[in-house]
Every structure is written in C-alpha cells, then in structure tokens.
C-alpha cells in the first residue's frame, strides 16, 4: 500500500475519459477500473471523483444515464460522447509527447549535455 502514488494535478479527467472509453460505467465502477488498470498503484480520493465527473458532463465530454447495476440497483452510468472521444485522443497525445520530452530530459546522461 505504501507504494501508491498521489494523482498528478489535472490527470484525473484523462483517466476518467480513458475508463469510460472502454464502455459505460457508474462512478464506483470508474474508480475500480482505474485502480484495476493501474494495478492499485494510484491513490484516488473517492469523493473527488464526483466533482470531476460533473465537470466533464457539464462540458459535454461524457454523458450520463440511469441504469441497473450488476446487483440490480439503480445506478448512474457514464459514457464517452463523440466530442469526449476527440478530446481524449488529443489529451492522450499531448500527454504522451510531454512524457516523452520529460523522460528524454530526465534520462539525459551528463556526457550528452
């Protein structure tokens, strides 16, 4: 458990978009999926998920719908919208470029400078 990382500022949105891109999920499901994909290496404050969800919905990246959960309960399901898909792709690409650059800088050996 002490190996868990705190979430980088601003990355939660991207992770949510990734999680729902694989299929509609309710809030708790999103939390579980992120933890599952990250192999429990990320710590997400449970409550902080919801304001992020509302913000994303308000901006039109995701849409919500009430449905039935696995244990026959009413739950709110979120799915990616077309606009959200484009947004996610753009964000992911930006992220990848950024990490490449950062990794390249960090990986530079003294003799290469």
């Amino acid at each position, binding site marked *: 458990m002490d190996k868990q990382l705190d979430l980088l500022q601003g990355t939660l949105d991207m992770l949510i978009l990734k999680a729902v891109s694989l299929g509609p999920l*309710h*809030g*708790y499901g999103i939390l579980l999926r992120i933890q599952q994909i990250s192999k429990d290496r990320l710590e997400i*404050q*449970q*409550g*902080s998920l*919801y*304001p992020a969800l*509302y*913000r994303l*919905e*308000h*901006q*039109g990246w995701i*849409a919500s719908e009430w449905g039935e*959960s696995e*244990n026959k*309960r*009413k*739950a*709110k399901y979120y799915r990616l*919208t*077309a*606009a959200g898909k484009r947004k996610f792709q753009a964000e992911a690409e930006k992220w990848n470029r950024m990490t490449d650059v950062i990794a390249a800088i960090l990986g530079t050996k003294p003799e290469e400078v």
Partner: protein
Amino acid sequence: MRLWSRLRSWSSATVGRSRMESEMDAELRFHMEVYAEDLVRGGVQREEAMRRARLEFGGIERVKEEGREARGANLIDNLVQDLRYGLRMLRKNPGFTALVVVILGLGIGANAAVFSVLRSVLLRPLPYRNPEQLTMLWVTDSRPRGWAVTDGSTSYRDFLEWHRQAHTFEDLAIFYKRGWSVVTLTGEEPEKVQGAFVSANLFTLMGVQPLLGRAFSEENLQHRERVVILSHGLWQSRFGGSLEALGHDIYIDDKPWRVVGVMPPQFRFPFLAGNWENRVEGEVQLWAPLTTNPYEEPSSSDSFNLTRPQGVARFQVIARLNPNMPLQAAQAEMDTIAARLALQYPDSDKTLGVQVRRLKEYIAGEMRRPLLLLSLCVLLLLLLASTNLATLFLARGVARAREFAVRAAIGATRWRAIRQLLTESVLLGIIAGGAGVLLAGPALHLIVALSPLTVPRLDETRIDTAVLVFSFLLALLCGLGFGLAPARRFSAADPHELLKTGQQITASSTLGIQGLLVGAQFALSLVLLASTSLLIRSFVEVLALDPGFRPDHILTMNVQFANPDATPPARMDDYYQRAWERLHKIPGVQAVGTVGNIFFLEENQNHALRQVEGHPPEPVDSWTPLVWTQVSGDYFRAMAIPLLQGRYFTPQDGPESPPVAIINQTLAKRYWPGEDPIGKRLKGFDPRGRNDEWVTVVGLVGDMRSHGLEREPMAEIYEVQAQRGEATPNLIVRTSADPMQLAPTIRSTLRSLDKSVILSGISTMQDVLREQTAARRFQAWLMGLFSALALLLAAVGVYGVMHYFVTQRIPEIGVRMAFGACGKDIVSLFMRRAMRFAGAGLAVGLVLALWSASLIKRMLFGVTNTDPLSFLGALSLLILVALSATYFPARRATRVDPMVALRYE
C-alpha cells in the same frame, strides 16, 4: 453540440434544481453502499464497513458543493440572493422606488408608444406580396411652376410606352383616384365615397386577390363595363357583410354598377398620403375599371383617351421590379426611356423625367421627418430621465457607503458589490419598463386620437412583441446605465477609510460626477424648452392671424348634386335661389351664400390672366398664385369680408348681363397699383361670357387667407355663379346665435327642396379653421408636455443631489459655523457650487438649443429661429428652477446646530 450540453446541464442544475440534488444524493449513496458491500465481502463487519465507506469517501457536503459549482448552479443562487436583497431594498424605500418607477416608466412608455407608431408607419412591410419589389413611377417636370406637372402623374400614352419598353419590371399597373365619387344605394341617403379607377392587372401586381368574387378582367376594361369591387368596410356597412352583395347593383350617379368582388379587410390602395385634405376625403372604398369613369367623354377607340393629342397627365403608375433587380437599374432604364420619349414627343415630354420610388418610401413620404423628430424627442426625454436617476442613485449611494464598506470588510469581492448594485438598478429598470408598457397603450391612443394628420397605416399600430422586446431592452439598458456609475464608484472605495469615518466618499469630488450629470440635464432641458417655446410662439402667432373674415357665427356645409357634371347650370341656379329664400326665413339666419372653394390648401400653381386692360402680358417667371372663385348669394356678407370699393354682386348680375367680377387687394396691387380698379376689364385663359367678353371689375374686397392661414393671401377673382354656371357646393350661413343649433333646421330645409342633394361636412367655420391649426396645436401640446416633464426631472435631479450633498457635509457645516460663518455664507457657498454645474450645463445647452432650433426652422411661423424671447425665457426659467432647487436644501444646512453637527461624526 458542446454548448448545447452545457446549457442542458446548466438548466437541469438551475431549473431542475431539486431533481439534481436528489439525483446527486442517490448517486453518492449508491457509491458508498456498493463500496461497503465490497468491504463486507472482504470480511469486514457490516457496521464497520459503512463507517469506513463514509470515512474514505471524504466530506460529502463538500463534494456536493463542488458538484454544484461544476454545474454552474451557484450562479443562479447568487442572483436569487441579489434579487431578494434588491427587492428588500426597494420595499424599504417605497418613496424612492415609486419615484424611479414613475420617472423611468414615463420615459419608457413614451418611447414604446412612439416606437410602435414608427414601426407600423415606417418599418413594417406593406401588406402586399413581396412589397420590397413595389415602386411608384413618379413623373418629374423641369418646367417652371404654373406649367409643370407637380403631382407625379403621367399620360396614358406614356404609360403604354413605358409598359412596352421597360424590362426591369415584372409588370406595370395604372390607376387614379377620383375625388368625391358619389355612391347612391337604392332607397338610401346618398353618400360620398372615394373611388379609384384601376387597370385590370393592378390586383395581381399587388399580389392581393379579392376575398369574394374576382378581380377585373381585360374584357371588363375593353367593353367599359360598369363593374365595381368594394372595400371590406363598404361591404360591411352597405351590405352587412352578406354574400348576396356579389352580382348586386349599387347606384353611382344614378347608374347601376354591378358588384363583382370584395377585397379583404387589410387591403388598402392607394394609401392616403399624410395631409389634411385626405383626412377629409377618407380611404378609397371602391375600385372600378380604368375605362369606366363616367366623367370621361366616351371614346370610340378602345385604347381610351389616346385621341387627345398629348394625353392628359392624370395617371399614377405602380410597378413591380423583377426579383433582385436593384432600384438603380430600373432608374437607369427609365431615364433612357424618358429621354427617348422626350425626342419622340417633344411637345409634351421634352421636360419630363421619371423617378423610380420605393412604394414604402412613397407612402411614408411626408411623415418621415415629423416621426423621426418625435422619436428623437422621446429618446432625449428618456436620456434625461436616466441621467436623473443616475444622480439619484449616486446620491443614495453616498448614504449607503457604510453598508458597502461593511460588505467589503467581511469579504465581498469588488465584482460581487458591482453585481449587487447592478441587480438593484436593473430590477428597478425592469419594473419601470413594465409600468412603461402599461402606459404605452393609453399613450398610443392619445397620439392616434390627437394626431392632426392622416398618418398612413397609423390604425395598424399596436403594442406587439417587437414593441415589448424594444421596451425590455430599453429598460435593461437604462437600468445598467444608471446603475453603473454608482456601482463603479462605491466598489472602488477603500473599506477601511469608509468604516473609520463613513464620510470619506463625500469629499467634494462626489459632486464632480453628480454635478456633471446635473449639468447635462440642464443642457438637455434647455434644448427641449427653447424648441418648445419657439413652437408655441409660432402657434400663438398663427392663432393671432387675421384670416380676412369673421369666422364666428358661421355654419358651413357641403351641398352637392348627385351628378354635378350632368346637372344643368339652370337647375343648380334655381335650387340655390330657392334655397336662400327658404333659409333666409329661418329665424336667426343673417346672411346666406355659397362658394366653389373656401380654402385652397394645396400648393397652388402660379397663374396669370390672358389679357388685362392697360397692362402688358406678364412673363411666366413673374407669375404668382391666382385663383378664380365662384360665389353666389350674400357670400361676402356671410363671411364678413369687407367691401373696400365698388359694390357686391346683385341678383341683376345674371347670365344675360355683361360678365362682372369682384377682386381682392392682392390682385388689385398686382395689376393696378395705386389706381382705382373699378371699371377695369380683364380676360382669363378660359373664355368668359357667351363670346369671350371682357369681364368688368365692379368691386374690391379685402384679402382673406384662402391659401391657408400660414400662407400669404393670393390674388383672387370672384365671379358670380349665375354667370359662370359652375357648382358652388360650399354653403355659408351667418347666424345670430350658436350656428350648430340651426344646423338641423337648415339641413331639413335643404333636403325638403331636393331629395337627391348630398349634405356633408356640417361644421362651424371656427372648427374648419381649427383643422388648419391642428398640426400646430398637436405639436405645441406634445412639446409642452415633454418640456414640462424635462423641467420637472431637472428640478428633481438638482434637488436630490443638493439634498444629499448637504446632508453629507453637515460636519463641515458645523465646523464652519463654529468658526463663525453665518447662514448666508453657508447658503451662498452651496449655491455657488451647484450653480457652477447648472451654469456650465446651460451654456452647453444654449449652443445645442441654437443648433436644434435651426433644424426646426421650417416648422416656425412668425418667429425667427434665434428668437431672443424664447431663448431668454427658457434660460431664465431654468435658472429659476436651478436656484430654487438648490436654495431650499442649502438653507436647511444653515439650520444645523453646530454642536449637533460636530457630534455627528
């Protein structure tokens, strides 16, 4: 798409607030329960699981609040809070609120009413198919007055040439109005109705089909069939809206005409132009084929009246442009055609041109200027009201400075304070706007009822959505406008200083902005007041004019024969003779006469005489207005036009005796200045007498203003009806008592002599004259009202500002008085400060007023546009208002007890 989802989410967060809350609740609860169940499955005790779920979830209320924020729900919360607070503030100061609502409500109401008039007269499309394509082809003439065609009409021959040669138009149609057609329906009293003769394609060209029946066919025109189409109004009044009207006959001048159609209620054509004449004549009520005018001589040719060599210019032409055809292209084409016709028919067309005018502009025509002027006035009034409210708000803001300081101290942001103030002022603005819309209805009725002119389409005016939107926007703008100045000012103040003293904001710079606003109000008021006094002075000048006769105790009415052109002169003469004899016997009747026309209010053409004894022929450019007037009976005595020399007409001046005339002073001066005109002889362009005899002048009478009160008298030659034989339909009866009391007796006497005569326009001469001054009276009332409002606003404004100014400076006054200043010093100190701004405003206003007076120069009569009396009067009135509005608050300051004042802090 994204905007849409944002709006949807926002609206569900605001409108569906409770639903959003309960959904958020359910969602979060679901999360914790499922998590707890997972924990239970992992072996944790149920209660412990719930506790941990809640704990790990974090503060649920904070999550919810962040969720609301994310959805923009709080924006509304704040607004609702501001609104509630604003409403509470308004309720707390009912006097202030009422004052604002009344001031602004008047301003917005006036604007809404004028805007709705403007909209229906100038802006709303005409009720025809694609009205933007419709144009009038208006003939211009470069000949000097007297010869020129001035009514834009054309000859039938030229119309046919245009029709053949022009390609920029879809179609051209032709029509003309016949003044005073006479309609007689069987068994009913005859009535005068305005009619128009039109070409068969006119209705198709306008794109309006009859409600019942059909439009005219080409056969109707070719065979000169007596068929008519009725207006909806005439159909209702004469046939009670019955379907049987179709195929029925109505009688026009004793001949039956078959009704073939009824137009829909909103159809009108031609529209009335805005002048007094048309108000009397009324709307066109029936349409007949162009070729059927009974007053035309019959022509063997089927293309009617082409037999006349140059064609008579009498027809108006309406044309529909091809779709998307620019006006300039049509104008260019018509220029070419006109030039071609000028070469082809040099005798008649050499001086003629054609102007292509949009139908809408043609109809609005003369109304444009006065309406725009009126709009300008009401806008000015609203500007004044807003300025006034801004000063009131500023003044009140001073009183609320402490409140805002407290708000700022406990953490309200600057933006929040501005929003609070703006919410209040916009709220007030909108309440006032609502009051204004309620006022606009009655105001509109007042304008329509008082309007002296037939304003085309005025009756279509109503308060509709566009007017509501306009008023709302105006209210919003005003609210923002007068809220912004105080909002900026008080949100910028330093809360610490304010809290310490509560006075910092009242440093003399405050009067800076307020003083400027007060100055602006005085400037605007002076503009209004000076223009008004010029217009009122003009009105008074017109009222004081000597019309050249005594208008009191005269009854006038129009007596017409059913078919005047077919009535032999002998019969008319006989009727008149018998009528006078009978009328004279009525007690109270002093003199009876008739006349062809009393007034000639239209722009009169310049004329000359063919021959004047002992006088060379006049060159055309020295011609001046001149009319021949036919009179009979005791016309001059009935009108009390003074006889200066010679004699009146007598019964001996008959058809067999030599032609005689009575002239007025203007004519005498024109031909025989300084000579005795009696016995002089003249000839008109029409042959006089049986063999074109000389007409001998037998009398000289005083000038009367027959050309309209506001125009100089013109040369006038009176002939006696018995010699001339033309109808003299206007009856003039001088009475010893109230003329209207005799009206029923006179009416029944006239009808008992001949059942077929048509009596109309029964009124006193004073009322007839009043019609001529109606436009001025309307102007004077309206402007007077505006100015009174402006004056009131300026007084309220300066009083309010001074009142607060003094209140805020009570400590300073206390200090000054403690050091020995007396009351007079204090009063003059405050008055000097206030008058500095009023004075500067008046100086600017004087320049503006002089400029605006030069704009209305053409509307003035008997005063110059720099009339010192008007300007000095307005100026001194405003100075008086400024002085008294500052004096009373200033004097209040001197009553302050120095000890109280010093402790005030």
